[in-house]
């Protein structure tokens, strides 16, 4: 295994049986607070430095196609209608109708009520159907309601569930409660993949992000996701770096690979490529795949398509020639 600068010592200290941790509040707290603290300046500097790489020509073309395949094309608005989400699903299947060589996106992400409409369009296409659940975006609802929300989304055809953690409980230090909710939601998901939204914008510190990442992975999350996109601070490069380090160390400790999904605020191809560089440099090429890394975004796709068109035609594209989301 590669050891990189900024790598934590958790890989070795956590070899004890991690599955036992969820049994008691004290064990969880001892473990999570025993994780090494994040060097804030170091993480921010490292993330900024990785953002300076110049990715051009064929490497850029490859990065753009990979980024398109990693997009979770998202619409989470109160104003979503069946017609709008169907149009979005059609775009997910064929993002650039003028170019058949353009790959389809990773998934479409909608509210549970919209899942049946999207499922019709995506059936058999290979594009995943993600649904937010568990009283998204606040997560402030009784557990039974959250689980019913999850089951309803899975029954309607979602094969990926984006749940939100209970930030109120997490910030109050009731880790066991958060853990149990994730375990229960994972169970309610059945075969569907579970993405755990940490809402890092509300967690205040990188130390909390690291703890929440480990908590979500210990409880069985298949993916850890930064944000709902509904609070002012969404995905940032340093937060994603901390989460990538967590999934790397978690695999080293347990052998299980967990995916990462930055969401919210990623709007340009340049930003997306910076994230891909960070993935490659932090966790390696194992994660450079739509099964292990996703972008939660809506406007990003159009910018990727415009850049792709620029590379194929040689002239700068304009937004007039791409669909509005």
């Amino acid at each position, binding site marked *: 295994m590669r050891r990189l600068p900024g790598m934590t010592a958790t890989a070795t200290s956590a070899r004890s049986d991690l599955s036992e941790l969820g049994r008691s509040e004290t064990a969880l707290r001892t473990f999570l607070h025993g994780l090494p603290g994040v060097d804030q300046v170091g993480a921010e500097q490292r993330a900024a430095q990785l953002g300076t790489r110049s990715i051009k020509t064929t490497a850029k073309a490859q990065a753009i196609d990979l980024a398109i395949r990693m997009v979770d094309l998202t619409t989470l608005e109160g104003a979503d209608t069946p017609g709008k989400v169907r149009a979005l699903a059609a775009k997910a299947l064929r993002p650039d109708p003028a170019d058949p060589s353009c790959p389809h996106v990773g998934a479409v992400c909608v509210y549970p009520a919209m899942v049946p409409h999207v499922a019709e369009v995506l059936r058999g296409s290979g594009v995943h159907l993600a649904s937010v659940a568990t009283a998204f975006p606040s997560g402030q609802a009784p557990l039974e309601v959250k689980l019913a929300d999850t089951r309803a989304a899975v029954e309607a055809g979602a094969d990926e569930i984006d749940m939100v953690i209970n930030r109120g409980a997490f910030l109050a230090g009731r880790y066991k409660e958060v853990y149990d909710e994730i375990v229960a939601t994972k169970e309610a998901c059945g075969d569907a993949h579970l993405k755990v939204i940490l809402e890092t914008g509300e967690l205040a510190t990188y130390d909390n992000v690291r703890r929440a990442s480990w908590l979500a992975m210990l409880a069985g999350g298949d993916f850890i996701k930064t944000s709902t996109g509904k609070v002012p601070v969404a995905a940032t490069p340093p937060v994603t770096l901390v989460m990538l380090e967590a999934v790397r160390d978690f695999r080293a400790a347990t052998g299980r690979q967990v995916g990462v999904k930055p969401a919210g605020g990623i709007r340009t191809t340049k930003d997306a490529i910076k994230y891909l560089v960070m993935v490659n440099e932090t966790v390696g090429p194992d994660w450079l795949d739509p099964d292990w890394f996703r972008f939660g975004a809506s406007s990003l796709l159009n910018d990727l398509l415009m850049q792709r068109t620029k590379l194929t035609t*040689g*002239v*700068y*594209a*304009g*937004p*007039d*020639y791409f669909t509005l989301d």
Partner: protein
Amino acid sequence: MSERVAVRKTYKLFIGGKFPRSESGRSYLVQDANVSLASRKDARDAVVAARAAVKGWAGATAYNRGQILYRAAEMLEGRREQFVALGVPGDEVDAAVDRWVWYAGWSDKLPQVYGGANPVAGPYFNLSSPEPTGVVAVVAPAAPALLGLVSVIAPAIVTGNTVVVAASPAAPLAAVTLAEVLATSDLPGGVVNILTGRLSETVPTLASHMDVNAIDLTGVADADLAADLEVKAAENLKRVLRPAPVDHDWFADPGITRMTALLETKTVWHPKGV
């Protein structure tokens, strides 16, 4: 006491209301001054800035646009000496100020002259009103340096378009100084963007850019380049203004054609009751 060293000025680009250097870091010498040598990425950034400014500028009232342009004329008047020091003759500066004021006055009058009610055979009010085309790329004439520049920028923006101007490579100092005038005139950032450097680098990018709606080739002296640019502009059916004839008299009354060439006509049919 040591002698004071004068602060020398670098003439930078004007993009989105700011004065950045070229992203390429290059510059060239004109009249003993360093001037940014814009790259195609600067041209792209300028188009992005111009596009972002369209909504606010086209949406502003004609009266408000006129006031802002009049303010620009006031600022231009105040910098008269600076232009003269750059080699622009005094009477040309005066003519440029007058030209700017003249176009400013057209802001709320052009729709009355160029639009209006159309007689139709049916129970409808039929109204046509001129609307701005959007983002306009402009190649400024080499001479007269200031009057030529004002004569191509003012008619494009007074109706609500935003412009990306490729200044003449030989006379960029007046263009950048005009940018300083515009930056202090309440003109929203991005309405006028000015690129200095080689036309062969920036203008083909602008001509082929799918997010540019019209191109004014006034300052293109090379006939082959002009033809090539027209071909590129045809890709998304940009409106094209052909290069100005060599003997064009910039001091003469310009008429309204420079404004009307960069407009679209919106026609509304409104049912009429009994």
